[in-house]
């Protein structure tokens, strides 16, 4: 049960901007063999190979805290450089242009907005619900389509425009259908809490580390210092 591989595993930076519980995500990633470090400032991303952005709550305070920590631009550069990113819950929602919850502008990496769940019989949407795939992805290797994962949220990202179908990896039903997983190349996001989804969640996180390891290995030589204070990006 306490399988830990503190050294030699994928170096995963879990971004800490005061938006929620990191014990469970740290514990779950360690269980699947990652070498986890908590990132509270840009320098903490420097030797990381993958980034996980967790979080619960509203977008505006989250963006404010990320900005205060100087992490917004480094994370945007990280994504632009094609490096592996996993957003969980709020960490997924931040990928969109903005949030209807409080009008905050967010990363703008995926066209669309975060909107309240429509037609939901109960809000917040709390509990285990089936994640139905729109297509296959390494993230779901070894998991039956329709597997239950644990959700806690009232809002969800809604992809818009020409790429909406392409980025939608999975959907879930709660009154209406909403997007519960997204995929945009090096950027993955899940609305559910994989770190709290028992064996299925651990499998998904293990799949993420394998995917990220493969992506990092295939990325080649050009590796800019993402965390080094604004000089990355070929200028």
């Amino acid at each position, binding site marked *: 049960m306490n399988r830990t591989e503190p050294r030699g595993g994928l170096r995963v930076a879990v971004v800490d901007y005061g938006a929620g519980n990191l014990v*469970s995500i740290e514990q779950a990633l360690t269980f699947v063999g990652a070498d986890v470090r908590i990132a509270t400032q840009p320098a903490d991303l420097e030797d990381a190979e993958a980034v996980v952005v967790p979080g619960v709550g509203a977008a505006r305070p989250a963006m404010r805290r990320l900005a205060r920590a100087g992490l917004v631009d480094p994370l945007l550069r990280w994504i632009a450089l094609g490096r592996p990113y996993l957003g969980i819950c709020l960490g997924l929602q931040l990928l969109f242009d903005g949030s209807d919850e409080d009008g905050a502008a967010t990363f703008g990496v995926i066209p669309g907005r975060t909107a309240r769940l429509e037609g939901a019989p109960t809000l917040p949407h709390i509990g*285990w619900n089936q994640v139905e795939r729109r297509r296959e992805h390494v993230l779901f290797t070894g998991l039956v389509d329709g597997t239950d994962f644990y959700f806690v949220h009232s809002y969800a990202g809604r992809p818009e425009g020409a790429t909406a179908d392409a980025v939608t990896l999975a959907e879930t039903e709660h009154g209406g259908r909403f997007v519960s997983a997204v995929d945009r190349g090096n950027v993955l996001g899940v609305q559910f809490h994989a770190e709290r989804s028992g064996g299925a969640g651990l499998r998904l996180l293990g799949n993420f580390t394998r995917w990220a390891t493969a992506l990092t290995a295939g990325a080649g030589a050009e590796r800019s210092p993402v965390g080094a204070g604004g000089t990355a990006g070929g200028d």
Partner: protein
Amino acid sequence: MLSRRVIPCLDVADGRVVKGTRFVDLVDEGDPPELAARYADEGADELVFLDITAAPEGRRTLLDVVERTARRAYIPLTVGGGVRSTADMRDVLGAGADKVSLNTAAVADPALIARCARRFGRQAVVVAIDARRTPDGTWRVLVRGGRDETGLDAVEWAVRAAELGAGELLVTSIDRDGTQSGYDTELLRAITSRVSVPVIASGGASAPSDFVAAVRDGGADAILAASIFHRRIYAIADVKRALRQAGIPARATAGVGA
């Protein structure tokens, strides 16, 4: 479709899981992290950890036991007992809880619910209501682990707590707690018909059919039990099977075999 949740409850006193009858006559049932790991493996959908001696002793939650439990679970953990401020809640969430349950402190200071919801989101705020039936067919709220009467009507308090920002209500029938005489489905229905937040039924489980009744007759979104799981009278899988046979969605049981 949202699965109905089956939730083992760890009542913790002095760092050990205990279980009493109507909140007294406590019997030792084991180590919190060990039981948490066992239940997660057996298909529990969530865990509730209640530090039942914190409020009566006027002390804060046992954070080290919470953290050891959170690290063994890999499923959601709600922690209650001794949380009296947003600072207490921050510490309990920091120790690995996903949600915090407010009870005595919320009755004393209802605005605490709103402050906690504003700071951490309503999804993280569970208001626990310990209710006792009165001869006139209503229910009154008790606090401090069932020791003190409040005069509050349980249904009205439930409505108010949801309005103030509770994301979930944990409704315990003190009359039924530990008696294995079934959930108080009338109490549950009185509350679920008035609020739109999820309601967790607690107190009185004796058999899988009681869980079915709590959902079907009481309108509960989740069902909590302690004794029958601790003493292995029924397994979580037995309860899930009964729910599915009654046409109620329940998560397929899967161990932590990643």
